[in-house]
């Protein structure tokens, strides 16, 4: 049954992409795309039912042999048989992920029908969205790292296509490129990690890796190296330090894209991958600590930048980075189920927040700057209501989904003894509540600061957009109850369901401590909300402006995103350019120099030959002439031309001959 899940989006993408762009009406395009994801969701539900009925915890479906049986020589020198199948693996983790991807994806597709109604490239948009859903499902269902990698790259490609969907806008095209290139850095880590596992174990099958690691077939150092390389891939996909810079820029894409890809699904792929390979990460304690600390630091670091953003979507983007940091924090302390739980609840409330922000932007005809909003509570009441639900959920207010998942992570961190991680998580929770309510107060409360044009067309969104928002709001409220902790009378059913795929995780906290921790974190959030209310409603943002004025440098550094973009472009882009220049110099000076040098040498040698030719050969010829010239110039003096000289010579010669004749004879 689960085999059908990725099939429908692929068909939808093919139909819309090949036929829809030319031949379909808008209505048909929308129906195809929504229908494909809807069928996929139905298949996911049916597959879950099948899994619950099945005695087997893991279902595997092999389609064909990808790489036929061969022998690889592993690091130890052992020859290991190796074969790679194109196979799907469906277990409780995959079930949760497919439901989130198809369920939230379905709502976002429905919403997009309304949101993109006026866009020219309607069919292209839905073809990309379906293709993305397909790639994400391949990533989730892949039974080995190679199949996962196909999905991993596929979602990266679709992310690029959708961020740059409005490619005639420079900022959007640049943001797409930035996302893609930053992800490539991470993907390279993923490939290296896969290669290292293949080299060390001779298998990249998830079941094989788990079995090998648990059977002690892997050295700790190798496991750490492989886990960290794979985690580098996760930081790229999931926008964690150090590869997070692309996500805020990705907000240039249409809002449903931000909700689907950059909140609910693709950015959580890293979290999913780490949970998938939990055996490997757990085996290497170092890697797990790195994951936890990266997550905790990112959670707080991204939250500080959310404080000063004025673009409504960028606040949510930093919030997403921060919340994914939470998920990694949960994974890093060994509570894999808690991380996935937060992944799920976050998918509900963050896509809700993005879509509600999209509804606001839609109402204001494209305005995204919160400084030009304010007082919208009365103008778009339904959007305000669902937005408030999302904000309360993400702030961890008891009774809503965010509360359960966030507190499970914090409790797990505290229980595992990572008090620093717990402290950072608590600070992050309070900061999250503050910036979310800053957003709400700036957007929906206070006096209207609308641009005159935007105010005229101001309208509440149509039902096709509002209904998905209301469904998501419902999920954001009740989604947490599947993981109701034991201390609150629940059964932690979610964690138990995941045990078959992410292993058991027992919390050793006393019930009293757990309740105390909840009270502390809820208290911190409420205090932060009160602070936000005081600053932005009661005193109309005046204290914030005073603080910004007082700590000008700090404000400048934070609002410029700690100059990380500038540093990256200086170091990496600049480095590449410098390397290019160096290569150019090398080419010009050394390679061309060698070639030119050879030519120059030949010329110099030929010049010597010329010298020999001119000097010696011609010299000999000319020399002979010159000797004759010199001799003749001496001898010609004898020829005076005077008759008497010749006469004298005749006389003297005759005298000489006569003398000779007389004396000799």
């Amino acid at each position, binding site marked *: 049954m689960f085999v059908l899940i990725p099939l429908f989006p692929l068909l939808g993408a093919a139909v819309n992409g090949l036929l829809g762009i030319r031949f379909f009406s808008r209505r048909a395009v929308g129906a195809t795309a929504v229908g494909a994801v809807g069928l996929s969701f139905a298949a996911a539900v049916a597959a879950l039912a099948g899994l619950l009925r099945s005695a087997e915890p893991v279902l595997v479906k092999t389609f064909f042999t990808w790489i036929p049986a061969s022998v690889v020589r592993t690091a130890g020198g052992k020859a290991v048989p190796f074969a790679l199948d194109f196979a799907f693996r469906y277990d409780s983790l995959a079930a949760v992920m497919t439901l989130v991807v198809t369920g939230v994806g379905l709502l976002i597709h429905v919403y997009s029908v309304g949101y993109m109604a006026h866009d020219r490239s309607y069919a292209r948009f839905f073809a990309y969205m379906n293709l993305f859903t397909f790639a994400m499902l391949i990533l989730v269902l892949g039974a080995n790292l190679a199949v996962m990698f196909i999905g991993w790259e596929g979602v990266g490609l679709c992310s690029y296509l959708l961020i740059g969907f409005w490619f005639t806008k420079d900022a959007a095209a640049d943001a797409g490129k930035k996302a893609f290139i930053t992800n490539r850095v991470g993907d390279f880590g993923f490939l290296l990690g896969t290669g290292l596992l293949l080299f060390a174990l001779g298998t990249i099958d998830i079941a094989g890796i788990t079995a090998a690691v648990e059977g002690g077939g892997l050295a700790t150092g190798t496991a750490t190296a492989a886990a960290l390389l794979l985690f580098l891939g996760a930081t790229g996909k999931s926008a964690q330090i150090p590869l997070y810079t692309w996500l805020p820029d990705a907000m240039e894409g249409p809002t449903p894209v931000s909700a689907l890809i950059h909140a609910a699904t693709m950015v959580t792929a890293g979290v999913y991958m780490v949970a998938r390979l939990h055996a490997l990460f757990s085996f290497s304690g170092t890697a797990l600590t790195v994951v936890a600390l990266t997550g905790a630091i990112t959670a707080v670091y991204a939250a500080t930048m959310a404080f000063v953003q004025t673009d409504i979507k960028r606040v949510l983007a930093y919030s997403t980075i921060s919340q994914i940091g939470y998920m990694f924090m949960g994974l890093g302390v060994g509570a894999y189920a808690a991380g996935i739980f937060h992944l799920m609840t976050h998918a509900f409330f963050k896509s809700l927040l993005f879509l509600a922000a999209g509804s606001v932007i839609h109402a204001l005809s494209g305005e995204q700057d919160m400084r030009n909003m304010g007082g919208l509570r009365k103008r778009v009441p339904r959007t305000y209501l669902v937005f408030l639900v999302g904000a309360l959920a993400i702030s961890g207010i008891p009774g809503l989904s965010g509360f359960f998942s966030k507190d499970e992570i914090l409790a797990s961190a505290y229980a595992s003894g990572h008090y620093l991680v717990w402290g950072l998580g608590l600070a992050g929770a309070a900061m999250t509540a503050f910036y979310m309510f800053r957003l709400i107060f700036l957007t929906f409360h206070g006096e209207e600061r609308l641009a005159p044009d935007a105010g005229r067309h101001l309208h509440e969104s149509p039902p096709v957009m509002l209904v998905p928002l209301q469904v998501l709001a419902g999920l954001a409220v009740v989604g947490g109850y599947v993981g109701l902790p034991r201390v609150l009378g629940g059964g932690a059913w979610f964690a138990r369901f995941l045990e078959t795929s992410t292993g058991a995780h027992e919390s050793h906290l006393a019930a009293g401590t757990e309740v105390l921790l909840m009270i502390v974190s809820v208290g911190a959030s409420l205090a932060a909300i009160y602070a936000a209310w005081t600053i932005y409603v009661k005193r109309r943002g005046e204290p914030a402006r005073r603080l910004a004025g007082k700590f000008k440098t700090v404000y400048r550094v934070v609002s410029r995103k700690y100059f990380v973009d500038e540093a990256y472009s200086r170091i990496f882009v600049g480095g590449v350019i410098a390397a290019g220049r160096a290569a150019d110099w090398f080419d010009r000076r050394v390679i061309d120099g060698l070639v030119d040098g050879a030519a120059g040498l030949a010329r110099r040698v030929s010049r010597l030959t010329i010298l020999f030719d001119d000097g010696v050969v011609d010299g000999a010829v000319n020399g002979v002439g010159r000797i004759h010239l010199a001799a003749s110039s001496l001898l010609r003096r004898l020829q005076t031309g005077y008759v*008497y000289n010749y006469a004298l010579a005749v006389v003297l010669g005759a005298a000489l001959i006569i003398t000779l004749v007389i004396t000799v004879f």
Partner: protein
Amino acid sequence: MIPIEAVVGLGLLIFTVGLAGVLVRKNLVVMLMSLELLLNGVNIILAGLGRHLKSPRGSIFALFVIIIAVSEAAVGFALVLAYFRHKKSYDTDVLSDLKG
């Protein structure tokens, strides 16, 4: 009877005068005339010695020399005349076209 010494002496004298003329004078005509003196000095000696030795050979040889001298003079003066027409001069200092 004129003594042989006087005849030879006269011949030598004329020869010497001719030789000096050829070597010293710069006029081509005079030089040709001196050449005649040279030849005739020798002729006197040839004829005198033939008579002295009672042999006709000396006189015969002298006759040959006279004939040759005539041809020489004819050719020589023709050359000098042709040269004069060309250069308007008999001076050997001017006539040095063969100078190397």
